């Protein structure tokens, strides 16, 4: 599973992407975020306010209850500010 971070999430995470292999019990984006936080390090700060975090799974916007599976590309980013 490939995790991507953009904008200030990337800066807080200190990395732009990482490969992770969560256990099978991690079934949704929300599960994944909790699991990341449980791993310690910067993640509790990265995910400290999920109200300002948006997610894409395989380049499609999804909500926190979206299912995830092996091979997915999961991106975390703040609300978009293009245009």
């Amino acid at each position: 599973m490939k995790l991507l971070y953009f904008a200030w999430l990337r800066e807080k995470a200190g990395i732009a992407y990482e490969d992770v292999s969560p256990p099978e019990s991690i079934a949704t984006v929300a599960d994944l975020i909790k699991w990341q936080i449980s791993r310690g390090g910067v993640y509790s700060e990265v995910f400290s306010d999920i109200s300002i975090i948006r997610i894409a799974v395989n380049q499609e916007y999804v909500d926190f209850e979206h299912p995830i599976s092996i091979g997915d590309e999961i991106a975390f980013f703040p609300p978009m500010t293009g245009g």
Partner: protein
Amino acid sequence: MIRVQTENFNVGIELEELTSDDQNIGAVSCFVGLVRDIAGDKIVNSMTLEHYPAMTEKALLKIEIEAIKRWSLSKTLIIHRYGRLNPGDQIVLVATASAHRNDAIEATEFLIDWLKTKAPFWKREETPDGSFWVESRSSDLAAANRWIKGSM
């Protein structure tokens, strides 16, 4: 048509291409977004646009298709730049061509509204006090939500 690029664009040339070879176009509407030298009360020395390359064109295409479904358009064009830009630089061009002005004007407004909240770009402003990620505005979200009607 969608283009995501670091290079600048020439609005005149882009609009000419939009209307060439179709004499049933009666209206062209376009919007250009530029980097301002002031944001709120901060001086902006430069702006850096980050994006999500694998997703950007996909997201823009989705927005473009939505516009084509809703309005009668002969052509549509979105050019969005990324990377480091200076005050006065062009960031984005949205242009639509249609037989009728209402379609062109409304579709252009829709495209820029949705693009602002649905295309994976993030702006960071470099100011004399440091760099800051631009926060999304509730007014932009409100503008985008005007166009919601079940779909997308």
